[in-house]
């Protein structure tokens, strides 16, 4: 079952913390401004996403969620990071 990585554009302030921390270089800052006047992050290479939640952990605005059912916990990878 696939996990779904979602960035809520209206919540994102384009701070870039998620882009920097992503181990797979999936995320980028968009060049289209959001309604709130920020340039939100987005998944430039969604297929590379391994749903490790590091972007979620670093996001100050809880703008990133990952839904669906967990296949196996990735607790380990987070510890090493």
């Amino acid at each position: 079952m696939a996990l779904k990585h979602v960035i809520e554009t209206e919540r994102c302030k384009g701070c870039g913390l998620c882009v920097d921390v992503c181990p797979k270089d999936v995320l980028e800052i968009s060049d289209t401004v959001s309604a709130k006047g920020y340039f939100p992050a987005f998944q430039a290479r969604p297929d590379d996403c391994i749903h490790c939640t590091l972007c979620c952990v670093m996001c100050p605005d809880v703008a990133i969620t990952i839904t669906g059912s967990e296949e196996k916990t990735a607790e380990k990878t987070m510890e090493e990071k």
Partner: protein
Amino acid sequence: MGKTFSKPEALTDAHTHYCPGCTHGIVHRLVAEVIDELGIRKNTVGIAPVGCAVMAYNYFDCDFQEAAHGRAPAMATGIKRVRPDLMAFTYQGDGDLASIGMGEIVHAANRGEKFTTIFINNAIYGMTGGQMAPTTMPGQRATTAPEGRDVEKTGMPIRMCELLSSLATPGYISRQTVLKPKYVNKAKKAIKKAFEYQMENRCYSFVEIVSTCPTNWGMTPLDALKWAEDTLLPYYPLGEFKTPEE
């Protein structure tokens, strides 16, 4: 492969007013996750400071009081003394806690009041626009230290964990940060431990979080994380300074 991630129940849906990349947001989420995991949301009273987090009550879905600048520890004392069954936490910045509120935090910790303090140390006054704080670094610019903090005239930055852990009263004193995911996870563990000590009615608990203030440091959010790691962490070492078991 991977995990799910969602907004904790103890956080409201409100968009925060914090600046892009401000780590207040991360700490809010950690506190909310801990409140959810310990199942105490409907028995918790938060006390907001005066500073950037003055409207923290818009972001937490639990009873909240709003303190005068620096007085949250006294209000939390009042709450815990009349209602020891309620979980109480103060959420304070460095101007609020280490400057005007120094008397209150030291005495609350020394009385061993059974509440938890989340102390955001970002070495600057945020809400009022970048003035020097007690934790501002030597030479660090602030609007009231235009040439950089002159320790000859203003003294050295205050290390709250070291100061509070010198008190003889038992307590849990820990300094953490949220500059990287590994730090975030440790910070969450410390916050959880702090609330658990409160649930056990064991001791006063204090978690300092070295944080960033991109706007008033005049840096991008990422540069701010880097500057904090390079400049703040050496002066504000992480770790547990005191636990009631000692």
